[in-house]
């Protein structure tokens, strides 16, 4: 159990503020008391971990700065000649075997059966007992909207993922010109660094697992929409709309997209228009 006294002692030690004798006594105490040793290790680990997170943000800012200056080489051109040797010989033999097997299988099976099997899972849901494909009948079924509830949901869920292609890492240019930093308050620079790195971090997280991380990043984008910097606000608005789509909140997404589409010179004005048309086309409400 972490008591306030132990906590204070641990941090006095970790910050190097203990004199030599007290330090030696404390180390002895740690050796003798496993519970205290555990608390010590946890506190040390938390402190180092939070510091590492802070340094990571610093390196992300440096990365952004160097990327803006075009200093970073993001290709393999200057690699240390690490060549990946692919076993092409074996790959080609395996591919040939698969091809020949596929060819044999295709001709030895009934073609009408294959055409049914090759329909996507949605078709399987809607027509589980199809004996022979009847295109005319199928067309009529679709126009009469005889599709059941489950398949309808399936369509919406599979179509909603269209937003993912819009999740790209943007280049955010700093509002402060290099070499003309005189007169700019340090708090403005700090605020810019905090907002831009938070934005990039959340976009990165969103890009990694769009549907999974959408609820988590949504609130961050919403908060960044209040940033004092216009380009951060505009980026955050766009990603808030995308995160809403990821979170299946189409109505909210559409509201934001409409706002973006009607804002002159918004960097995502035309993308918002396109996305709105796509949503409309899919009839996702």
């Amino acid at each position: 159990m972490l008591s306030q006294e132990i906590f204070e002692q641990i941090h006095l030690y970790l910050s190097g503020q203990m004199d030599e004798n007290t330090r030696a006594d404390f180390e002895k105490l740690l050796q003798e008391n496993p519970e205290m040793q555990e608390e010590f290790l946890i506190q040390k680990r938390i402190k180092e971990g939070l510091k590492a997170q802070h340094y990571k943000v610093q390196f992300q800012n440096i990365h952004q700065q160097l990327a803006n200056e075009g200093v970073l080489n993001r290709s393999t051109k200057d690699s240390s000649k690490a060549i990946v040797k692919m076993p092409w010989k074996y790959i080609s033999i395996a591919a040939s075997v698969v091809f020949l097997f596929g060819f044999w299988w295709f001709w030895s099976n009934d073609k009408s059966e294959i055409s049914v099997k090759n329909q996507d899972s949605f078709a399987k849901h809607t027509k589980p007992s199809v004996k022979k494909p009847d295109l005319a009948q199928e067309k009529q079924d679709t126009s009469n909207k005889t599709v059941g509830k489950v398949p309808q949901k399936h369509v919406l869920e599979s179509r909603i993922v269209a937003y993912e292609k819009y999740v790209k890492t943007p280049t955010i240019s700093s509002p402060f010109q290099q070499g003309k930093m005189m007169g700019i308050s340090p708090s403005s620079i700090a605020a810019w660094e905090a907002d831009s790195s938070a934005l990039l971090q959340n976009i990165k997280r969103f890009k990694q697992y769009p549907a999974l991380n959408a609820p988590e990043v949504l609130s961050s984008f919403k908060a960044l929409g209040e940033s004092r910097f216009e380009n951060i606000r505009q980026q955050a608005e766009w990603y808030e709309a995308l995160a809403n789509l990821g979170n299946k909140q189409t109505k909210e997404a559409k509201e934001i997209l409409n706002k973006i589409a009607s804002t002159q010179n918004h960097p995502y004005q035309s993308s918002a228009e396109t996305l709105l048309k796509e949503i409309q086309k899919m009839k996702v409400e």
Partner: protein
Amino acid sequence: MSNTNFQRYERDDAFFYKELLEENPNAFTFLYQQTHQQCIPFALTKGSEIEEAEDILQECLAIFIVKLRNREYTWQANAKITSYFYRIYINQWKKQIDQKSKLPTLSLQQDFNQYKDEKENNFKETEGEISIDKVDVGYENHEREWIFVQLEKAFRTLKEDCQKMLSLFYVEELSLKLIAEQLKITEASATLKRFRCAKYLRESFKPKNQN
């Protein structure tokens, strides 16, 4: 950015080490630029995505700076800092690839126990100082994941005022007096609040049935 400084860092590794210890922004930039040049092409030729490779780089550098500032890494004349780091990077990159293929599921407590055992062994073997070979093995297993996934998640569940308090305390290492000034509260309240917030965070690393 000072090119003169960069030239000196390139020539004089001991000076570069000193500047890193002092958290000189130029030294950080030089370190990033150099290691990016060395490490990223390696990961890309092995088929990594650029963003994943850069993410690993930034996380490894962050932990490296913590270790450097804690003197767990100490400079040695026969090993250039950036070359030394390159080995750490390759090690961590390989671990990431292995982990991806195994998809381990570790609980916070399991992970902490593992860390504790490793630390205790280090403590016994070297009496508090970690030898260069130990550092060379890389960071403790899952250390990166613990810091940048689990700890980050736990920290984000805290209320905003607690996050601020703990950042000022753990990261900025401000005295209670300065924390109290920043948060516009009394020193006594700051003492109490600091302990409570630290305890909330610490509690997230205990299993639910243990108090």
